[in-house]
């Protein structure tokens, strides 16, 4: 115990130096001048905590090592299909019973499931850290927004185009960039994400500038609008068609089911990709690029497919986000959004689809449920990202890779 004492003391002093200026002396505005408001109790508690933790460091380390994360139950082939079928059935039936705002939060969670799975292809499968993923998300959203604003197109006409435009951007931006080394690639994609957002802000006469585009219609069900009154005289609303009283929950549930469908498509595609030759090539490339090149595989072209596919799913997600929110403006496509989607992939486990799905749900539902801690939300995000990388870089639910057997 005593051996730890000097270490603990130094740690406590360091804690004091760190806590005092930021938490101990709070800057407050008094009229013209600012003054310092002391909050010493936080600082003392902090230093005491650090001191104790450092003192008991050996025991805590041993105790902590014994913590076994619940390992995921392994199910063989048929159970596997049964499990997924049960889950999907539950997901489809549930909204008709869940509360309206719970369904709405679930829709937002499903958007992040889709974005997480999309980014997972780029980061998890191909090992490319894309920090500008939000740029493709914005391209998808604005494609729908602009096509509606300038050409009056509906959601269903724009959805495939939004994906295609985002994929095109992914291809054009990816091509010159993919031969760069890992961290340079990350920073260049970050630059692209910011440039896209700045262009959306500055090209005011096309993109509506900082106001963006509002009044974007939500998706219709085979032409039936889910609103109280049809937007155009010849349009027809859902409730008139089935002549039942207008119930706003229809729209919320419809949006949820749409989000679920898009998320499932993303899941199925990314599941297939892993088992296809392209999936194997990504994995081989991640392990040893030089060996791949010596066997005739073109690394840039292989990485490009991952980059473009990821961008495509971000495009679909963006179009749906625009439809759900009815408004697109540059404010919602900042770097923090990219970091959020990245933390979904990182928390779930890079390359693990199930992990990404659960992480996406957790990271959207938790902050809504625990509303009072809302201001600690971003602090927790940052902390969790560091903790995950130090403690379990492979993520909470690392997936065992699908193996082709003889």
């Amino acid at each position: 115990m005593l051996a730890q004492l000097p270490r603990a003391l130094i740690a406590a002093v360091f804690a004091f130096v760190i806590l005092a200026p930021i938490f101990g002396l709070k800057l407050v505005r008094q009229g013209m001048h600012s003054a310092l408001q002391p909050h010493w109790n936080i600082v003392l508690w902090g230093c005491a905590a650090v001191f104790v933790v450092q003192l008991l460091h050996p025991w805590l380390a041993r105790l902590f090592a014994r913590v076994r994360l619940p390992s995921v139950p392994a199910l063989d082939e048929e159970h596997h299909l049964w499990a997924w079928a049960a889950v999907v059935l539950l997901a489809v039936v549930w909204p008709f019973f869940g509360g309206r705002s719970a369904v709405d939060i679930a829709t937002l969670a499903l958007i992040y499931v889709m974005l997480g799975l999309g980014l997972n292809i780029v980061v998890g499968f191909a090992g490319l850290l894309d920090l500008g993923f939000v740029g493709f998300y914005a391209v998808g959203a604005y494609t729908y927004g602009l096509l509606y604003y300038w050409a009056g197109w509906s959601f269903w006409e724009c959805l495939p185009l939004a994906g295609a435009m985002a994929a095109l951007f992914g291809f054009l931006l990816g091509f010159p960039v993919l031969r760069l080394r890992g961290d340079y690639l990350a920073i260049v994609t970050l630059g692209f994400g910011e440039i896209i957002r700045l262009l959306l802000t500055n090209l005011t006469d096309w993109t509506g500038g900082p106001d963006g585009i509002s009044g974007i219609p939500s998706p219709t069900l085979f032409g039936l609008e889910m609103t109280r009154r049809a937007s155009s005289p010849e349009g027809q609303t859902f409730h008139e068609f089935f002549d039942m009283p207008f119930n706003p929950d229809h729209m919320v549930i419809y949006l949820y089911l749409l989000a679920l469908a898009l998320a499932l498509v993303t899941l199925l595609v990314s599941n297939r990709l892993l088992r296809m030759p392209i999936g194997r090539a990504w994995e081989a490339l991640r392990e040893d690029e030089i060996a791949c090149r010596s066997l005739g595989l073109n690394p840039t072209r292989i990485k490009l497919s991952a980059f473009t596919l990821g961008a495509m799913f971000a495009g679909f997600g963006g179009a749906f986000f625009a439809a759900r929110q009815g408004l697109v403006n540059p404010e919602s496509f900042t770097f923090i959004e990219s970091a959020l989607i990245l933390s979904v992939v990182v928390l779930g486990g890079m390359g693990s689809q199930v992990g990404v799905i659960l992480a996406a749900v957790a990271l959207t539902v938790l902050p809504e449920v625990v509303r009072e801690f809302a201001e600690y939300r971003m602090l927790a995000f940052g902390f969790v990202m560091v903790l995950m990388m130090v403690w379990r870089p492979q993520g909470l639910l690392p997936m065992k890779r699908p193996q082709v057997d003889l």
Partner: protein
Amino acid sequence: MTDFFPLFIQQLFNGLSLGAIYALIAIGYTMVYGIIGMINFAHGEIYMVGAYVGLVALTAIGTQSGLPIWLIIAAMLALSVTVTGVYGYTVERIAYRPLRSSPRLVALISAIGMSIFLQNWVGLGQGTRDMAVPSLISGAYTLQMGESFEITIAWSRLMIIGVVLVLMIALTLFIQHSRMGRASRACSQDLQMAELLGINTDRVISFTFVLGAVLAAVGGVLIAITVGKLNPFIGFIAGIKAFTAAVLGGIGSIPGAMLGGVLLGVAETLAAGYISSEYKDIVAFGLLVLILLFRPTGLLGKPEVEKV
């Protein structure tokens, strides 16, 4: 309309003072990258913490205390450098040292997490609103050139360039001649080899982070005094631009960081001056993307030959 030349000189000076701050922060990126090949994404936030601690020191002393201006600034620098140095050490100790041998991607994500954490850490402690810093140095040296345009060189901005020049020279001498300087150069050549030769690489790496943090802290205090507005998010954009400067100059080379900082500051200011300030950030990001694409080793950087 005034004639071209004095206007250009004024914009050049504006660019220089801005570039000096970028250079100070860029050195932090370059030194860390040179030694452990890692982009310290949270370095912008260290700069922000330095600015905040400087403001806390200034508010504690109070502007009416009658002390001479330079003593107040010296006190602000002293406190900010110490606290931020501890921040630099702790960040490295918690978020980077355990990841020393893990893949580059993992360390970068941890750095991003630390950057978000520090922003909200200061946001929680000091609030997310804009904090004003009363101006300590006012007045300017004016130069009449051309008939109507009067070039004004604000003392506070001149101070920035002066302090930064002095620090650059001191740092270069330190790296060339001191024992720790030699050790850090050895580490940046080949970390494993340095360890084999008995250099305590952990200590050198910690020292590099602390030195980077100290320089960033000076930058933070100087920007606080001159610009006068702080919030927990100023570190993010300044960090990215400083990284652009480091890459422009050639990541890993300290003179490169200085050159890159000045060039970026001038390029941005001229773009804002002659095109429109809306495209100031786009010029910076555009430059970053172009450099990384066409000359990843930067102007003064050493090309990295990929060993097969």
